[in-house]
């Protein structure tokens, strides 16, 4: 994919400088900071922070344990609700989740407790000599999980804990899903995603088979026939299109494609640098893309959004990060045409100015052009239809384009469950995917045990 940008220059900064630019955006707490911060927690009852955590971590309890110098106990409390608590501590938009709800997040109380940072502190320092959870006696049941992203991994871990054997079928080379391939590099640094997967697999009973693609070399009917249950954690594999001419021209690509390369790059200095860069969209992915390009050394990074600032999907915190990284925001402008140079490469984009007319977005009639070496689309992920190509999969009921599930993560076909971004339930967040996986595992377990009793 990055071939599409090969004509661009490389970053000017040296390796050290680049490494620094992509180190932890939020540096970890020191022991002293953790002690001070944990003592700020009021140990609420029916705590609003827990209510706001999609994975229902018992926050007052784990913070209390940090304060009590019981870091392993704190870590276990977190992991028992969220086995990917380490990455969630780093990537969760806490400003709209637990910390938003924290009772200390009001004018009189100064600031919320830094729940995410404390969670990271506990997990970074727990120092387990062995996997903290034990498996129940073998049930003899085998479950197929498709997709080794947060949803699939979380589901697999919980199933393994209940004594079932799990095989994860993963299309890509590495497990972790977007933790490995999508999260901004400065949020989840070095090989944390892989280390976390290894830790998770430490429970035993989980096998990951890479290069296995549902809808490619794998069919749902097969899995349904061979396993006692199937969980689909496919994520959103496709990217929305602009619907413009020359959308495939060199210089124009999906932000997620570039971020994937950036996360995998051993040498950041080898990445193509779009000195003048346009990012289309206003969600967190758009911000991630813009900020990372800025940190690589781009001089002129522009975020263009077809509506106003108030409508942006990115959280206020993310928007602040963008501002701190010299990202310029253009609102009320819609991509109108890709502008190419003589060699057929992107040289810029023409935008149509927009406005609300009777509550609907329309053009004002004005247009303007922005020059760019590259344009990144971050206008949303889509469900990849190829995954559900086989006849059984085609029968799955949908909720929009995504797979329909009930509160127990059951799809319309008995024995088949789904969770994470590929379903319409909840927000598209790592922590939400983890929760879905966990809930699905509990539902699968309950169902299988019911069947055992009935037999």
């Amino acid at each position, binding site marked *: 994919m990055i071939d599409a940008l090969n004509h661009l220059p490389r970053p000017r900064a040296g390796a050290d400088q680049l490494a620094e630019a992509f180190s932890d955006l939020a540096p970890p707490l020191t022991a002293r900071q953790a002690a001070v911060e944990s003592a700020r927690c009021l140990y609420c009852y029916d705590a609003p922070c827990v209510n706001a955590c999609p994975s229902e971590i018992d926050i007052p309890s784990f913070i209390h344990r940090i304060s009590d110098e019981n870091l392993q106990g704190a870590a276990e409390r977190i992991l028992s609700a969220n086995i990917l608590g380490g990455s969630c501590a780093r990537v969760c938009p806490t400003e709209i989740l637990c910390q938003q709800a924290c*009772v200390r997040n009001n004018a009189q109380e100064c600031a919320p407790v830094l729940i995410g940072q404390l969670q990271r502190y506990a997990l970074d320092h727990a120092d387990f000599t062995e996997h903290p959870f034990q498996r129940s006696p073998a049930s003899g049941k085998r479950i197929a999980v498709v997709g080794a992203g947060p949803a699939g991994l979380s589901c697999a871990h919980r199933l393994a804990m209940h004594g079932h054997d799990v095989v994860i079928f993963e299309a890509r080379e590495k497990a972790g899903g977007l933790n490995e391939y999508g999260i901004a590099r400065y949020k989840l640094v070095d090989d944390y995603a892989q280390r976390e997967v290894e830790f998770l697999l430490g429970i035993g009973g989980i096998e990951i088979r890479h290069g296995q693609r549902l809808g490619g070399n794998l069919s749902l009917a097969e899995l349904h026939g061979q396993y006692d249950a199937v969980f689909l954690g496919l994520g959103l594999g496709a990217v929305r299109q602009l619907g413009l001419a020359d959308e495939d021209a060199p210089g124009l690509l999906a932000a997620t494609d570039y971020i994937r390369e950036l996360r995998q790059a051993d040498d950041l200095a080898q990445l193509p640098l779009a000195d003048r860069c346009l990012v289309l969209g206003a969600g967190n992915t758009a911000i991630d893309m813009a900020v990372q390009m800025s940190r690589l050394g781009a001089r002129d990074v522009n975020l263009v959004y077809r509506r106003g600032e108030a409508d942006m999907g990115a959280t206020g915190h993310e928007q602040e990060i963008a501002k701190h990284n010299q990202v310029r925001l253009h609102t009320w402008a819609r991509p109108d045409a890709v502008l190419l140079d003589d060699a057929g490469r992107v040289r810029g984009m023409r935008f149509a100015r927009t406005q609300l007319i009777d509550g609907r977005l329309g053009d004002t009639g004005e247009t303007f052009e922005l020059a760019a070496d590259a344009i990144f689309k971050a206008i949303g992920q889509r469900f990849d239809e190829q995954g559900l190509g086989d006849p059984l999969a085609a029968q799955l009921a949908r909720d929009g384009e995504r797979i329909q599930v009930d509160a127990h993560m059951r799809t319309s076909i008995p024995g088949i469950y789904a969770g994470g971004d590929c379903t319409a339930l909840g927000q598209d967040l790592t922590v939400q995917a983890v929760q879905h996986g966990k809930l699905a595992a509990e539902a699968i377990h309950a169902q299988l045990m019911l069947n055992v009793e009935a037999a």
Partner: protein
Amino acid sequence: MADLSIVFAGIKAPNPFWLASAPPTDKAYNVVRAFEAGWGGVVWKTLGEDPAAVNVSSRYSAHYGANRQVQGINNIELITDRSLEINLREITQVKKDWPDRALIVSLMVPCVEESWKFILPLVEATGADGIELNFGCPHGMPERGMGAAVGQVPEYVEMVTRWCKTHCTLPVIVKLTPNITDIRQSARAAHRGGADAVSLINTINSITSVDLDRMVAHPIVGDQSTHGGYCGSAVKPIALNMVAEIARDPETRGLPICGIGGIGTWRDAAEFIALGSGAVQVCTAAMLHGFRIVEDMQDGLARWMDQHGHRSLEAFRGQAVGHTTDWKYLDINYKSVAHIDQDACIGCGRCHIACEDTSHQAIASTLKADGTHAYSVIEAECVGCNLCQITCPVQGCIDMQAQDTGKPYMNWTQDPRNPYREAG
């Protein structure tokens, strides 16, 4: 500004803030720095007979609250470890250089009249303003028949006090140990012996914590430990009660009291004064923060007095004594009920779970549409215990409101439910 000066047991001082006999008053260097900082007086670190006491290493340990906040300190130090001669020489010089400050000399010698007869004239010759008898040291010295070993036996207290009144003309302040069952017995004994004042409390027997790896308590000396004396903020409630007990005891009415124990702010001092103290002494707070705290204490106390129209300390001294009584005289018909200020409430749920699990199930929790909870008092169930107000992190959020019951004052001695009520 209000006048903070005092005359306590005949001793004049520009303010009521004195440093207690302890390391802060161990030698001229410290005491001079303390006077420079503004302390109204000092009680010099306890003198004894030569040869001087010998101290061990280490000596202190602490009881911490959240965030390493020191609640209290425990120490196993003895009285001065310097010779009598050096101490007396320094005391003489300091008193000469600082004539307006109170300089009291703390003493502890064996429980024989000869020892007191020997040391008292030497102290008097320094020009010091008074003496304080250390009958309170709870560690080390009692094993040698001094300190708390004297303070725990009222007859000894009375006897030694009388010796001091006989062999010296200076005001005698008797410092009491809290390691007894009824502080009034000690105060009465001092009073009978002719004491000009009592000061209290000295430190409380304590072990602050145990090193669970080495299985030895703190402070650790080699691989052993011993109990020490507890002081600092945590002991204030104990000291306040003992001060009040003496202040309202008819047998010692009018006996000047110097309040000691956990004083660190002007408010602490004002509370001791309200319960009858004519001066206060401070040790731990100075040990934790240095002498500069006296400036804030003076400033805060004077401003508070100005706001309340108190021109001098005497104007409010002892005002809370009359309101301190025995349980049996409390008004059984009085009723207060908790009230939650919903605007101030941050929704932490602490009041609810406290009342639900351990009190009277009088705070309802209602689930709101957004998944959080609202809390409200069920007035009919509330017994007015104050627990919710105590656990609420927001000051002023829960208010205990007096109810108009329409019933007259009635105490337990009059209550028909009391089978032993006094016939009335």
